[in-house]
C-alpha cells in the first residue's frame, strides 16, 4: 500500500513536527504568567549536581516543559474541543459549558469537609462569642446548582448540603438565600455572583439580621471584557462577561482599611479591575482582614463577616445598615490572631461561605 514516495512524505512530516516543535520549545520564550490559568509558570530548573542526583532537575524540567510549551493556550483549546467534539465528554477537567455559562462540576458533597468547616466556625464561636452576639450562617450555592440539573451534569443535593451545614453549625441562625439565586446571578465565565444582581440577597441577609438597607444604588460598568477564572480552565471560546458595580451614598462615603497591609483601600479598586483578576476590584480581592467604616451611619450596629471571595462583592451592599463591618477571611488569617484586631463585643456575626469553600474546607485555618 505504501510506496517510497508516501513513506518519504510521512518521514518528512514527522521530522517537521519533531524539529519544528523542538526549535520552538528551545527558542520561543515561555510566558511570564499564564493568564488563562492565573498562575506563574514553572521556572526552568537550575542544573546542579545535587538537582540531577536527587531527580529535582528532571521533575522540574517536566513541569517547565509543559508550562512553557509554545502556544500552550491554543493546544489546551484543541484538547478541550477534542474532548467535547470528538469524544463527547460531558466535562473537561471537571469544567463544562452550558448555554454560554462555564461551571465546575462541584461533586460529590463531602460530609467530612462540612464537619471540618463547622468545627472551625464553632472554634471561633467558643473563643470569641457569647450569648450577646447574634450569630448567623448562610451558604451561597455555586453555579453548578442552577445548571447541572438542566444540562445532565453531576450535582450535589444542595438542599441537603444546606440542611447539614445548618445542623452542624447549630449555634448560628441559618439564613437561606439559595431560593433568591438563579444562574443569571453569576458571571458566565467566573465562579462569583454579580453584585448588581444580588440586591435581594443583601436585603434578605440584612432583614434576617434585623437591619434595613437603602435601595438607592447607581450601576456602573467597568470598561473592557471580563474573562473569569473558569474561562481559562475551560479553554473554550465563550463570550466574555462585563463587570458592573453599584454605588450609593453609604458606599461612596465609607472608609475601608486593609489590616493585612496597613493601608486604606477603595471599595472598588479600579486598578485591579484592569488587572489579571478583575473580580478583585471588589474590596481589593483576597485580603485576610478588612474593616469598612460607615461615615454616615444611622446606627451603631457592627457586623463581623467570616467570608470567602463572594463576600467581597456583597459586603459593600450591607454597609448601609451598619456603622462598621469587619471582614475576616480565615483562609488567610488564623482565628487565634483575630482577637488582636477585632472587638467582638455586641457585634452581629455572619458566617457567609460558598459551597465551593465549604466542600473543600481544608483551606480554612
Amino acid at each position, binding site marked *: 500500500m505504501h510506496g517510497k514516495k508516501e513513506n518519504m512524505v510521512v518521514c518528512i512530516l514527522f521530522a517537521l513536527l519533531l524539529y519544528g516543535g523542538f526549535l520552538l520549545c528551545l527558542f520561543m520564550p515561555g510566558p511570564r504568567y499564564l493568564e488563562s490559568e492565573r498562575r506563574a509558570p514553572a521556572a526552568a530548573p537550575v542544573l546542579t549536581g545535587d538537582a540531577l*542526583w536527587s531527580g529535582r532537575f528532571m521533575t522540574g524540567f517536566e513541569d517547565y516543559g509543559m508550562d512553557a510549551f509554545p502556544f500552550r493556550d491554543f493546544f489546551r483549546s484543541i484538547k478541550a474541543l477534542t474532548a467535547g467534539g470528538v469524544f463527547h*465528554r460531558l466535562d473537561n*477537567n471537571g469544567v463544562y459549558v452550558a448555554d454560554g455559562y462555564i461551571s465546575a462540576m462541584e461533586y460529590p458533597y463531602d460530609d467530612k469537609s462540612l464537619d471540618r468547616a463547622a468545627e472551625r466556625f464553632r472554634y471561633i464561636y467558643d473563643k470569641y462569642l457569647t450569648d450577646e452576639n447574634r450569630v448567623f450562617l448562610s451558604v451561597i450555592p455555586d453555579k453548578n446548582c442552577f445548571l447541572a440539573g438542566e444540562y445532565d451534569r453531576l450535582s450535589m443535593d444542595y438542599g441537603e448540603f444546606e440542611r447539614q451545614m445548618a445542623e452542624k453549625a447549630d449555634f448560628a441562625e441559618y439564613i437561606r438565600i439559595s431560593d433568591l439565586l438563579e444562574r443569571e446571578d453569576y458571571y458566565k465565565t467566573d465562579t462569583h455572583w454579580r453584585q448588581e444582581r444580588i440586591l435581594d440577597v443583601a436585603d434578605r441577609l440584612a432583614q434576617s439580621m434585623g437591619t434595613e438597607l437603602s435601595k438607592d444604588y447607581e450601576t456602573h460598568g467597568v470598561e473592557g471584557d471580563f474573562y473569569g477564572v473558569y474561562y481559562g480552565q475551560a479553554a473554550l471560546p465563550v463570550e466574555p462577561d462585563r463587570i458592573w458595580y453599584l454605588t450609593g451614598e453609604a458606599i461612596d462615603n465609607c472608609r475601608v482599611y486593609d489590616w493585612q497591609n496597613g493601608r486604606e483601600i477603595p471599595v472598588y479598586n479600579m486598578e485591579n479591575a484592569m488587572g489579571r483578576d478583575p473580580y478583585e476590584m471588589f474590596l481589593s480581592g483576597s485580603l485576610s482582614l478588612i474593616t469598612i467604616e460607615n461615615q454616615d451611619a444611622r446606627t451603631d450596629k457592627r457586623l463581623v463577616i467570616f467570608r470567602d471571595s463572594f463576600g467581597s462583592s456583597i459586603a459593600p451592599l450591607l454597609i448601609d445598615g451598619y456603622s462598621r463591618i469587619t471582614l475576616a477571611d480565615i483562609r488567610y488569617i488564623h482565628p487565634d490572631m483575630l482577637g488582636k484586631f477585632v472587638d467582638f463585643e455586641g457585634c452581629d456575626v455572619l458566617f457567609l461561605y460558598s459551597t465551593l469553600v465549604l466542600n473543600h474546607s481544608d483551606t480554612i485555618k
Partner: protein
Amino acid sequence: MLFSSITFLYYFLPLTMALYLMVPKRFKNLVLLLASLVFYAWGEPKYVFLMAGSILLGYGFGLLIEKFRGKRAGRFFCIVSVLFSLSFLLYFKYADFFLENFNAVTGAHIPLLNIALPIGISFYTFQLISYTVDVYRGEKAQKNIISLAVYIAMFPQLIAGPIVRYSHIAGQIEEREYSWNGMAEGIRRFVTGMAKKILISNQLAELCSVFRASGEKSVLFYWLYALSFMLHIYYDFSGYSDMAIGLGRILGFHFQENFNYPYISKSITEFWRRWHISLGTWFRDYVYIPLGGNRLGKGRQLLNILVVWMLTGFWHGAEWNFIVWGLIFALLLTAEKLWLLKILEKSKVLAHIYTLFLVMLSFIIFNAQDMGQAFSDIGGLFGIGGISLLSAEAVYCLKSFSVVLFMGIVGVMPAVRNFVGYIGNKPAGGRILNIAEPVILVGLWLVMTAYLVDGSFNPFLYFRF
C-alpha cells in the same frame, strides 16, 4: 522518562534522532547507549548504576560461559549469572513482600526495607537472563560491552518491554538497515501506539480513578470499572509496546510483536498466545521447557504449568493478588488442556464470553490493592453488599465516557485494520488513504500534544513491574 511526555517528544527524541542519524555507523550504538542512559537516569538517576553493574556482570558471565561451554564450569557460571540477576530482582522488588509475610507468620517485627523499585528492573533482568542462557545454549558471547549494553538498555524497550531476546536481536545490534520504508513504518507504529495510550488508555484510567474515589458505588459502576480497566490495561500496555516497536523500527531494529488482538480469543490458552507475547514465550523458553515442559508426563506438565503461572503472577508484582492472578490462569489453562477446550470449541460465542468474562475478573484481581478489595470489586458486579443497581455518578460516567468506551471496544478487534487493508487494496481507496494517512498522523500528533500540554496525568501502568 515517559514516551508520552513533552520532554521525550520535543527534547529527547529530536536530539537523539539527530545525533543517531548524523554519526557514522560505527558510533551509532554508542549514541544509542548514551541516549538510553540519559533516558533511564531521567527517572532513576541513582539506579542507573545498578543497571550498569548488572550489565557488567552479564558481560563477564557471558564471556566465562562461552569460555567453558560444554564443561561443568560453563553450567556453573550460567547458574551463578542467573542467580545474580535474580538476586537483584529479589532484593529490590520482593524483599519487603517476604519480610512482611515472615513477620505476619512468625509474629516477628523485622522492619521493612522500603526500597524504591528500580524502573524496568523486571524487564532488563529477564533480558540479561536471556543473554547468559542463550550464550550457554550456544549463542556467541558479546565481546563488545557497548553492544551488550545497547541490547539491555536500549531506551525503546528498556522500561516496559517487549522483552527482547538476545538471540533475536544479536545480529541487528551489529548490523541493521535504515530505509525510508522502515522509518515510515516505525513512525506510523509509534504514533498509533501513542494515540492508544494518550487518547484511549488515559481517559479510561480517568474513569477507573473516578470509580475508585467514588463514595456511591453501584452495580453499573462496578461493571463500568471492570470493562474500563480491562480496556485500559490493554491500550496502555499494547500502546507502549507499539511505541517501543515503532521507535525500534525508526532506529533500524525489528522487535518481536507483543500483542495480537488478545480480546478476540476464544480460550484462555489463546488469550495468552496473544497477550504479552514476549513474556509468555520467555517463561516458556527459560522456565517451562527447562523444567521439563510436557516431556515428563502429564502430572509433571501440570506442575510445570502451575510453577510457571505462579511465577508469571509474581513477576507482575510483589503482592498476593498477583500470585492469585497467576494461579487462576494456571488452573484455567490446566482445565482447558484437560477437557475444557473441547467444550469451548462447540460454541464460538460462548467461548468468547467465557474468555472475556474470566479475563475481566482476572484484571479486577490484578488491579486490586489486596485480595479483600478484589473480592469486594467482584462481589460488586453481582450486587453483593446491598449496593444499588444504578448511581448518578455511574450513569454520568457511562454517558461521558460512552464514545471512549465504544472506540476502545472497536479498537480491540481487527475490524478497523482489516477495513483499512481492504480499502487500501482498491486502487481508488489506496490513493485516498495515501492522502488521508499523513493528514491523520499530523492531526493525531497535534491532538496528542494538546492532551499532554493540558494534563499531567500520564503514568504508564507497566512501570510498576
